[in-house]
């Protein structure tokens, strides 16, 4: 089976190709099921790899499957090869597993879409690129996948490129924004790869990790910080998170798959994969941890005031990715991956449930126009609530265990970061249930919309029930101390975290985390359901902060003024002054000179004999002068 690891990639590739060339004649349903089947087969192949790895003893669970010699230029040798180890297989399972559920959901959600063929081709292509990213055994292969998912993201965000609205602007612009902001990060990654190759002569992970000691501390820190830049782009952290809220312009299943469960986790995966670099560059790790913690808090504050249901979830994703970044920053790679997995479950669930809401409300996403939706779509309401519970970290849900593991790891290394994370958890619980209560509880605020609201078809509920089950039971993947399955499984790939704290402290922190989650939910209930006076008063007191939060702490305004406007000015200058003025002007000038010269010379041939006589005479005079003086 391991020799056939390439099948994991072959299935989505085949799906994309078949749908591209034959999709037109296959019919709507067939295209969707073909794409879903491709990803499902990739999931089965990943399960096969998992089973095979389980059969190997722990220290041997790292297999390189060579596909072909990709680059061979003198000393620069890069193979096209896959690294099958616990980390890559885990990621592959998440990508293909959640991916299959989302493909199936899409068959229902995009049933009325005229360009469904393009949609499923892009979706399969995304899965292919993501798998290349997580399965590659070297930096360049990963970079190919990195760019590929960026491209898929651009194509899918701007899927309805001819649309615009008040919330997202021109949908095509949202796609461009995502691509361009990511480019800044990709630049960092390219530089990092170059630094590593220059220092170590290889881009293969295993060879680079083996030679880490040979690099100077400064070089390592620089390379790691550049990788961090790349991760902030892909995983939407400070300073490159601004593309994610706008990315909600894409179809909701896309938001679920790419911008919640998989693509955005690529940065976290990358850091976990390259953990020897980070272990050797503690400065960079610290920066990563703080970037994560601050992003988590910042994004949570912005989620508090959003009225677009998907944007609440988008800022929530940025915030949760911050937790994962915090996790890898403090060296808790396994915990970060744990949160990555549980987040994939409950965030995909939340997004798809939002998709159900959109579907039932004919495209409406403004929570101010919702209310009491559980009366009209009870299953979706329950499913969304399950997701919210996991997101908030309600005790015993998967999100509870994964978030607490990160907070516990942070506590030992930086109480300040722990405090940030804990406060953010409070905000997280609050804004999650703000969404639940405003959308699904209370009185219907728009009676007409409410009357037309309906539950979604089974194909759009089935995958959600599966995700809900995983969101609730996912904690079983890693019960700390009791059954740390995931930690042990990932150890060959990401090492083990040294824990000095005792069981008592860990249990205490877990209890605190649970209480914080309950407190947040209670606050939201008091404010939005009971409408208690003290809660309203508190909101009133905090009202002056509202404009700051609604404008996203003016970050995007800052970017616009400091980066976007100058670049546009430069572009305008280049287009109008340089291109049209100087370059076109020069070319036109040459033409004009020609016309001028030919105009003048034309006069020599006017058919008048006296003119010709004069020309003869002048010529003779010149010749004589030449002979006399020359």
């Amino acid at each position: 089976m391991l020799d056939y690891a390439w099948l994991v990639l072959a299935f989505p590739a085949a799906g994309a190709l078949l749908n591209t060339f034959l999709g037109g004649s296959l019919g709507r349903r067939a295209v969707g099921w073909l794409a879903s089947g491709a990803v499902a087969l990739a999931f089965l192949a990943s399960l096969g790899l998992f089973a095979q790895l389980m059969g190997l003893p722990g220290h041997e669970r790292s297999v390189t499957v060579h596909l072909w010699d990709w680059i061979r230029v003198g000393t620069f040798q890069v193979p096209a090869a896959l690294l099958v180890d616990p980390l890559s297989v885990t990621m592959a399972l998440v990508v293909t597993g959640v991916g299959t559920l989302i493909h199936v959901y899409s068959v229902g959600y995009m049933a009325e879409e005229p360009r469904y063929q393009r949609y499923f081709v892009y979706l399969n292509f995304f899965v292919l690129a993501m798998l290349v990213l997580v399965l590659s055994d070297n930096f360049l292969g990963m970079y190919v996948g990195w760019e590929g998912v960026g491209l898929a993201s651009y194509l899918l965000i701007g899927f309805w490129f001819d649309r615009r609205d008040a919330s997202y602007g021109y949908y095509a612009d949202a796609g461009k924004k995502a691509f361009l902001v990511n480019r800044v990060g990709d630049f960092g990654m390219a530089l990092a790869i170059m630094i590593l190759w220059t220092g170590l002569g290889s881009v293969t992970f295993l060879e680079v990790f083996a030679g880490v000691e040979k690099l100077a501390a400064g070089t390592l820190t620089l390379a790691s910080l550049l990788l961090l830049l790349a991760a902030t782009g892909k995983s939407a952290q400070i300073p490159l998170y601004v593309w994610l809220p706008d990315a909600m312009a894409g179809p909701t299943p896309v938001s679920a798959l790419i911008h919640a469960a998989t693509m955005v986790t690529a940065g976290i995966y990358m850091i976990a994969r390259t953990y020897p670099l980070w272990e050797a560059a503690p400065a960079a790790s610290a920066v990563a941890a703080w970037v994560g913690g601050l992003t988590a808090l910042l994004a949570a504050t912005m989620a508090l005031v959003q009225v677009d249901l998907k944007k609440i979830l988008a800022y929530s994703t940025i915030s949760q990715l911050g937790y994962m970044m915090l996790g890898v920053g403090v060296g808790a790679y396994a915990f970060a991956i744990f949160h990555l997995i549980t987040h994939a479950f409950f965030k995909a669930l939340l997004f798809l449930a939002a998709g159900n809401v959109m579907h039932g409300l004919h495209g409406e996403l403004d929570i101010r126009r919702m209310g009491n939706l559980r009366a009209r779509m009870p299953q979706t309401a329950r499913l969304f609530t399950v997701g919210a519970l996991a997101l908030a970290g309600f005790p015993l849900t998967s999100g509870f265990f994964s978030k607490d593991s990160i907070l516990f790891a942070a506590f030992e290394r930086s109480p300040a970061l722990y405090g940030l994370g804990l406060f953010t958890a409070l905000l997280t619980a609050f804004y999650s249930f703000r969404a639940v209560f405003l959308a699904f509880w209370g009185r219907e605020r728009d009676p007409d919309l409410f009357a037309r609201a309906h539950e979604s078809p089974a194909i759009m509920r089935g995958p959600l029930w599966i995700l809900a089950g995983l969101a609730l039971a996912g904690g079983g993947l890693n019960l700390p101390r009791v059954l740390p399955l995931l930690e042990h499984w990932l150890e060959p790939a990401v090492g083990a975290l040294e824990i000095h704290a005792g069981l008592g402290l860990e249990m205490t922190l877990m209890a605190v985390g649970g209480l914080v989650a309950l407190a947040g939910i209670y606050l939201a209930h008091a404010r939005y359901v009971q409408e208690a006076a003290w809660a309203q008063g508190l909101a009133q007191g905090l009202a002056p902060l509202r404009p700051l939060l609604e404008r996203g702490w003016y970050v995007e305004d800052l970017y616009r003024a400091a980066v976007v406007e100058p670049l546009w000015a430069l572009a305008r200058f280049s287009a109008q002054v340089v291109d049209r003025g100087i370059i076109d002007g020069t070319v036109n000038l040459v033409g004009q000179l020609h016309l001028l010269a030919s105009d003048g010379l034309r006069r020599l041939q006017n058919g008048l004999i006296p003119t010709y006589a004069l020309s003869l005479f002048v010529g003779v005079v010149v010749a004589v002068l030449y002979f006399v003086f020359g």
Partner: protein
Amino acid sequence: MVPTSYYLILSGVIFAIGAVGVLVRRNALIIFMCVEMMLNSVNLTLVALSRQWGNLDGQVFVFMVMAVAAAEVAVGLALLIANTRHQESINIDEIHLLKW
């Protein structure tokens, strides 16, 4: 003996008068006459220098020049008469259909 320079200067003057005539006069026949004047001025130069050096080559060349001039006149007048079939005027400014 008359200094040779007198002849040469006279020849130059006659040549200049002929040249200016070719450029300035409008009547085609006058222009032909001016061309003849230029040729004759050259004849004068040749003969004067021939007498100075006592060499008859110059005078023999004058014969050639005169023969060519006569032939040229015949051809030129024939051309002019041929053109008269199209228009009556022999104003050189109006004979420009040569470009056809």
